[in-house]
């Protein structure tokens, strides 16, 4: 057996499917004012934060769940969910990693996220979120030296209320769509990043999300602010245990780039996709939006979506500052009964703004994949341009691949170009690879990796290797 086969053997089943037996503190089931107050109270939040949540809740009552998406799902009973779940030992937050519950540490070790700094080889600062709370943030000292703030959202609300108050909800307002507003009302934790003026963050920042408890939703909120002339690269990874029920994950991620700043946001999403019959799995309904607020700013989204029963998200860029740039690179893979409706929105408001969209969709088994995107060039966005390319690869005739781009050009100085293709792996390519000694699965792996190369290149090195493997594993059993 060569190493790849071993890898596959080892990972054939969803390897993150274990649960951790930890005592939890949960908010009472259901969604109401009291639960929101409970969450706010347990996190010792100031009054303005509670007001923010209640305002969102009032708004939520008026909103209807959207239903225009392609993958339909059974109605979610929002009153039958726990909106807060935290390991008991986190109630009084540990001061250092030594005080952390060993079971938690064990969990993260299984996931391959070493929280103990001494055990780390690759200098990536990690913020780990377990169900509803952030359990540990590593490399704090090193970051503080540069004036970088990287901590959990709850901590930021306590320690840096000025920054949070100024930026929270400016990109995704409380009056946004249903799931974003739901998140605004009940969000529990997430990461907060602030990069001061002129600082290039010396290491990759990373958050690891894990849903552990059953019948809970995870509602995290991430806010990243890159001040003038700064740079940050941020990674996000996700896993969840195998359960028969569907679990909801409705996060909000807000990025703000001021003048000359650059934010690179990469996601490797590997939530539990459900079993091969489509039972269980995560509903990944996430709102991610970046605002290029300043001149010459840049926001770049890279995502590798392999998990979740249903993925429904559109990481977007609002290009408000002149000369700002938005990029979106995506690989979405669906297998078995997974469904995805994903893409991006590029909204050009400033002059000379540029955006680029590269989307690669692969569907296999009985899955269904939709690319849905919007490119909107406003009448004031002179001399702007967009380039979009979305390619789909189909494996078998039980799956579907769809492309739904919306293109709006209101500016005669601007150019929009869009291309899309749909194809399958050709017999010639397979034949060529097999002739040179690869078995059919290896051949498919090679071709698929070639198909995704443009996007994989955008990932930071450490993640690129992992993502490449993930691509191979996700398509396991779909060939032949």
């Amino acid at each position, binding site marked *: 057996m060569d190493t790849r086969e071993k890898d596959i053997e080892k990972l054939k089943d969803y390897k993150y499917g274990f649960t951790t037996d930890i005592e939890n503190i949960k908010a009472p089931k259901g969604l109401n004012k009291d639960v929101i107050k409970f969450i706010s109270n347990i996190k010792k939040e100031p009054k303005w934060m509670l007001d923010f949540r209640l305002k969102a809740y009032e708004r939520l009552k008026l909103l209807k769940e959207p239903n*225009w998406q392609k993958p339909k799902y059974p109605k979610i009973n929002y009153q039958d969910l726990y909106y807060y779940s935290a390991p008991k030992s986190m109630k009084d937050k540990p001061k250092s990693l030594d005080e952390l519950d060993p079971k938690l540490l064990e969990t993260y070790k299984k996931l391959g996220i070493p929280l103990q700094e001494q055990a780390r080889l690759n200098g990536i600062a990690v913020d780990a979120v377990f169900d509803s709370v952030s359990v540990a943030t590593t490399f704090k000292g090193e970051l503080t030296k540069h004036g970088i703030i990287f901590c959990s959202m709850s901590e930021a609300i306590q320690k840096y209320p000025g920054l949070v108050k100024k930026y929270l909800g400016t990109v995704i307002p409380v009056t946004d769509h249903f799931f974003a507003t739901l998140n605004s009302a009940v969000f529990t934790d997430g990461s907060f990043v602030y990069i001061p003026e002129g600082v290039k963050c010396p290491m990759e920042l990373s958050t690891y999300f894990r849903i552990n408890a059953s019948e809970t939703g995870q509602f995290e909120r991430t806010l990243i602010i890159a001040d003038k002339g700064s740079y940050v690269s941020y990674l996000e990874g996700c896993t969840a245990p195998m359960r028969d029920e569907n679990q909801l994950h409705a996060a909000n991620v807000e990025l703000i780039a001021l003048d000359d700043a650059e934010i690179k946001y990469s996601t490797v999403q590997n939530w539990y996709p459900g079993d091969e019959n489509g039972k269980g799995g995560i509903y990944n309904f996430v709102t991610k939006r970046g605002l290029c607020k300043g001149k010459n700013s840049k926001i770049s989204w890279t995502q590798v979506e392999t998990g979740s029963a249903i993925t429904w998200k559109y990481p977007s860029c609002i290009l408000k500052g002149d000369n700002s740039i938005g990029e979106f690179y995506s690989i979405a893979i669906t297998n078995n009964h997974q469904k995805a409706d994903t893409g991006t929105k590029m909204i050009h408001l400033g002059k000379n703004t540029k955006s680029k969209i590269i989307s690669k969709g692969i569907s296999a088994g009985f899955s269904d994949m939709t690319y849905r995107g919007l490119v909107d060039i406003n*009448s004031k966005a002179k001399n702007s341009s967009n380039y979009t390319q979305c390619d*789909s690869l*189909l*494996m*078998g*005739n*039980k*799956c*579907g*691949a*769809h*492309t*739904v*781009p*919306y*293109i*709006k*050009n*209101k*500016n*005669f*100085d*601007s*150019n*929009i*170009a*869009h*291309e*899309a*293709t*749909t*194809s*399958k792996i050709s017999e010639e390519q397979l034949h060529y690879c097999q002739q040179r000694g690869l078995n059919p699965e290896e051949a498919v792996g090679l071709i698929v990796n070639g198909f995704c190369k443009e996007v994989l290149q955008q990932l930071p090195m450490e993640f690129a290797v992992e993502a490449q493997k993930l691509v191979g594993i996700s398509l396991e059993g779909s060939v032949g």
Partner: protein
Amino acid sequence: MNEKLQLDFDKITKTLKISEKEVKLKESFLKKFIENGFPNKKQEDWKFLDISQIIKKNIGDLSFFNDYSLPNKIDSSIFVDGLEHNKIIFINGRIEKIDFSYEDQNRIEINDLIEKNVKFNTENSLIDLNNAFTNKSFKILVKKNYSLKKPLIIYHSTNDKIRSKNINLSLNFELEENSCLRLIDYFSDNAEKNFVNILYNFNLKKYSILKNYKLDKFRNNNLKYSFNNIEQDDNSISETFILSAGSDYLKNEVNCNLNGEYSSAFINGVFSLNENQQHEIRSTINHFVENTKSYQLIKSVLGKNSKSAYQGRIFVDSKAQKTDGYQLSKAILLDETSEFNAKPELEIYADDVKCSHGSASGSLNEDSIFYLMSRGLNYQQSKELLINGFLLDVVEKITDPEIRNLVKNIIGLKE
């Protein structure tokens, strides 16, 4: 509006000599329309141009009753010169003349259509409106192995006697095995501020060929909606060309069902718009079986305050292996107030297919203008030459040489 609808409807059914059953049927369509009203932008298919708003703004109150008891005078100056053709003449929505004098009368049948074929697209309230108010519907049958010698031109004309009216037309065509029809829809308007709603249903049997050219060139203040439903059997070919340039509002919808193997559909369109014009083409091509082909090319030239939209959808069923589908839309925006919207959509459930789409929009290429001006043309001439070339590309796709020349003359394109 609802009371008005009911009143006008009662007036019409009283004057028409139709059976009780038919009145019932029409009433059910009216009920459906009253329920849904004119489509608005909340509906996905009407996202870019909201017809209910446009009617409100451009016309105001519509009246649905037309008095068809008296014939209108046919103004022969509207006829197309230099092309021998058969004629069907609609004036203000009333059929004034049907003339197939060039053809073998035994090979064509024209019937008053009693029973109606309305199985398709029940989500569209404008079709309900059409079904409720059309007073006379014809079916034209081209018999087996017969190709019409001359093209058929349907004149859609209005005179100054009507205003703020809703006109509904409906025609059915059946092309039997190995037959061929060239059909031109020719619009010329003297009336203002009317809403014309046209519904065509085509049934193409094996090896038949349909070529439909819709020419809306002359500037007028009417709003128009046209829906073509095309059912295609084995080895049949449909070709649709749309010139969208004359009316204030025009939406052409083409729904094409490729039900037979080796059938193919071609849709080509040109938008040439300015001053407050808002036009749209929406096409749906359904590839239901193996080895079918579709090709679409849409180009827009958009002047001041104009807006065009293209929504193209290719659906490929899981059975429809070896499908070949292609869509391309391009737009030139000439002014800062012009706007182009597109939604080219692919929905694919089969793996062995070749499907692609492309869309590009922007201003005229400065380098090309510079090149032409450096060779002695002035700015205006260079611009015209580039636009000429841009549009010629689509017109060249017309397979019928006679009609291709006619269209070139109408648009004013040079080779």
